[in-house]
């Protein structure tokens, strides 16, 4: 009896050791992946980057997104939504208000306006029970959304937009083509205007990314400016969708903000499930420059 | 609705109290560490058929220190009269456990003191807040327990120890 117990216990210990090897990683520690897949009919993901100009760790999150663009190219469509405590304005140079009422409506839904930043939401899909993920989870979540799904999206979006300088308005035309059958349900399209190259101050803790504790001439990219057809978009189908079916939505006379730079504006289109088990989950995203 | 929830809990609590009131149980078997590094099993706690007081305490707990300091002043008399032994179990974790030995000596306490760093004994005895004091009879059965310390608690405690010493039954709560 006694020796049996001994043996059992030794067996248990050995199995632990067998499983417990250490993985020593040798440099280079970072992958350099230049094999970008591109094309119009590839799956693209929608990444909401919840950020703030007074958020000291946010430049690190932006750096991760930049690195991911090296790997995935334009398959990641990013919008930076300024929200919460870290987006509050104060005396100059922190007097520029990046927040928007449309952005706040979406941020409040996830609770991103009341948590520590940076946070991200990938394709409006929960990861381990939560929409919001930390920056250390960005890369893995993006990889899961792009590498573990078919390359061909269920819906392909063709986006066309024009800026009319005479009256400072935008007109948009979005054409959705189903590339597979989709179940009965509500389908929405959301159209968003973002702006890049806004040079304003940003708090920073990472010396490898710029001066600390603040970068006075930080380049804010893909800043969420407004929703063209309301924060949660508009329904374009409420039925089953069959392969090859097309839908069209157009908007005109969208007035841009007085301080927006028309040459740095982007148009973002997001198609998502508006009800059912996959409610809010993004099917496909698309971005064009104006 | 919330109040209802609350009342239900209270009722069941009382029920439990009444069901378990008569139970006399031995000290659970868990390893604790003496102040000179010896591993001692709690089921081996004994006092030659005399009562034992087991007191859970921590260096950061003022009422605990107050209780043990108050008792230490009368402890020699208690021992002489009833043969009682006090075992003090420190629930300090590794942040504060280094202060246990100097504190015990610094205050000149004459108790048997053990460290319960992993809180195994604390859990086995159902201790949630300190101080929490147990009374063990000569047969090694837990017969009484009490939380918190207020002025005069030690007088009630010694009265119960005397009863135990005389072989009288004591109410479990």
């Amino acid at each position, binding site marked *: 009896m006694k020796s049996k117990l001994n043996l059992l*216990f030794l067996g248990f*210990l050995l199995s*632990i*050791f067998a499983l*417990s*090897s*250490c993985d*020593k990683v040798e*440099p280079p*520690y970072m*992958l350099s*992946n230049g094999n970008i897949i591109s094309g119009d009919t590839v799956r693209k993901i929608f990444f909401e980057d919840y950020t703030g100009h007074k958020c000291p760790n946010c430049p690190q999150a932006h750096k991760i997104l930049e690195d991911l663009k090296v790997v995935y190219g334009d398959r990641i469509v990013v919008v930076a939504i300024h929200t919460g405590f870290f987006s509050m304005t104060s005396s100059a140079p922190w007097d520029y208000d990046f927040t928007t009422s449309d952005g706040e409506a979406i941020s409040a839904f996830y609770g991103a306006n009341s948590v520590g930043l940076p946070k991200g939401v990938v394709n409006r899909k929960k990861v381990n029970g*939560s929409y919001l*993920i*930390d*920056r*250390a989870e960005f890369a*893995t979540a993006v*990889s899961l959304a792009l590498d573990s799904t078919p390359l061909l999206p269920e819906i392909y979006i063709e986006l066309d937009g024009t800026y009319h300088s005479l009256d400072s308005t935008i007109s948009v035309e979005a054409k959705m083509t189903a590339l597979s059958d989709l179940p009965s349900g509500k389908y929405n399209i959301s159209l968003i205007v973002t702006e890049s190259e806004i040079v304003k101050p940003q708090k920073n803790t*990472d*010396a*490898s990314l710029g001066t600390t*504790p603040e970068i006075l001439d930080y380049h804010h990219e893909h800043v969420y400016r407004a929703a063209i057809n309301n924060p949660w978009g508009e329904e374009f189908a409420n039925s089953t969708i069959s392969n090859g079916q097309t839908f069209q939505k157009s908007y005109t006379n969208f007035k841009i903000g007085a301080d927006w730079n028309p040459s740095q504006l982007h148009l973002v289109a997001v198609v998502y499930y508006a009800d059912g088990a996959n409610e809010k989950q993004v099917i496909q995203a698309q971005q064009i420059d104006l | *609705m919330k109040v209802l*929830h*609350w009342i*239900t*809990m209270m009722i*069941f*609590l009382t029920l*439990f*109290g009444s*069901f378990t009131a008569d*139970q006399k*149980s031995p000290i659970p*078997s868990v390893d604790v560490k003496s102040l000179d*590094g010896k591993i001692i099993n709690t089921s081996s706690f004994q006092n030659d058929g005399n009562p034992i007081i087991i007191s859970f305490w921590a260096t*950061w*707990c003022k*009422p605990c220190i107050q209780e043990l300091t108050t008792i230490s002043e009368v402890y020699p008399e208690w021992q002489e009269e009833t043969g009682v032994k006090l075992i003090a179990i420190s629930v300090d*974790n590794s942040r504060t456990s*280094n*202060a246990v*030995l*100097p504190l015990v*000596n*610094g*205050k*000149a306490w004459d108790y048997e003191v053990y460290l319960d*760093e992993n809180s195994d004994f604390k859990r086995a*005895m*159902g*201790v*949630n*807040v300190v101080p929490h004091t147990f009374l063990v009879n000569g047969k090694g059965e837990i017969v009484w327990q*009490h939380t918190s310390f*207020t*002025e*005069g608690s030690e007088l009630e405690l010694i009265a119960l120890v005397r009863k135990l010493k005389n072989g009288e039954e004591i109410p*479990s709560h």
Partner: protein
Amino acid sequence: MKYILRFSLLLFFLQSFFFNLSAQLLGGGEVHGSFQTDGQLYQKDSVIGAESIAEKVAFNSFFEMRYINKNFEAGMRYELFMPPMQGYDVRWKGAGFANKYVRYNGEKLEVTAGNFYEQFGSGMILRSYQEWNLGFDNALNGVRVKYKLKGLTITGLVAKQRFYWDLGPGTIRGVDAQVSLNEVIDKLKDKKTRIGLGGSFVSRYQTDQDPLYVLPENVGAFAGRFEIYRAAFNMKFEASGKINDPNASNNMIYKNGNAALLELGYSKKGFGMTLQAARADNMDFRSNRASSGFDLPISYIPAMTAQHAYSLAAMYPYASQANGQMGLQANIFYKIKKGKTLGGKYGTNININYALSQSIYKQAINDSTYIGQNGTLGYETDLFKIGEDRYYSDFNIKVQRKLSKKWDVSLMFMNVFYNMLINEGHQEADVHANIGIADIWWKYKPFNSLHFEIQELVTQQDQGNWSSVMIEYNRKGLFAAVIALYNQGISGQSDPVLYPSVTTGYTQGANRFSLSYGKQREGILCVGGVCRAVPAANGFSITINSSF
């Protein structure tokens, strides 16, 4: 309503089940358990920043039961957060069986399946524990085997960690051995010198699906410890290391981590002292590399500072920096004998404590890499060089003397330095504060006492000066207290705020009930003989505690 019914029914069935089972089927055995519920009614108060909640009332409750029959033990804990009280993570919301286990507890072999808590040595590379009042629980869920021989205990475990109502993604494997040389080697049996040795190894497995980094899927950590006791002297040394573990808290650097702790003690009747020195470098170890904050820690690197019980002394507590800190602590306890000039009629107790924590020295690995840059080895360091930044220091002295049979007085002075950026994460002026406390007991007749506590905190930084006065009445199990906490504020920046509150309660045996009303700031509250942490709030709160 659904939960109330479910919970009540469940309790009822559990109870009948256990009693019948123990009485009839298994021939005896015992059932023990405990119960606690905390409830708070929230009222909005914009002055102190207290918020109301949609549900108006919040509850945190648990009910825990153990069944023991000879060598067999089983237990479970039901937890309910409907919704969690403010200050607790919102992810606690919900109810269910959080903790279930079965255990065989033999003379030599102990096997546990289900949830369990474990600590290797001081916890440097593995510690799982629960602090109900802080809303912390990183219980292990898996299998643990302990094998006990004379003077030797070997522990092995495989488990995942509890993550609120879920499990963390990483798998933890660990082994530990603890040896008492005096019991193993016959020659040393009767020697005065006692020697203890221990060693452990812990490994975490987590898959790598990161497209940017080459991540280690298995990360190992190891530790060794040594203790020696001889008469009044004792010494402890513990050291640990961890291989490359790029994670959220170290900004994805591949440097190895290490930590060490040395403790020297001398004590005899009436005098005791300890000296400690500790260092930690890149030792934050979790069962999810993407986690931070209170989520999923495996290692435990404690703050090497005193834990204060008085509310104002506990106002600026040090937050331990597992990824880089060097600290020293000295603790002296001395009792001036009764009859001496300074000793008085009953003797005087003196406790002096000093703690200091600094950053570790860091230097860039080469000219093109910044210190701590992600995807690199991070930095180079020197074990014996102290970093430039002061994180924390605390000097405090406590004097306690019983003046007569009726009067007992404690006085305390404390000087604290608190680095705002390190401890709270925002760039504000560091706090220098002086604190004075008088704690007086008047036992005016048997079983009756009045307790006065007067505290004053003086600082130019943060929220400025604080004062606190408490009067408490005790009679047998009954107590009632009035507390007035006052913040002077800083002129031109913040307004003065008063936090009044009243508390009353009753203890009978191991059952305790307390009720309070008023405003509370976040902190540790000690009244009626028990201490617990409380979040900032305004309104009624209630606590019930029971063990059986």
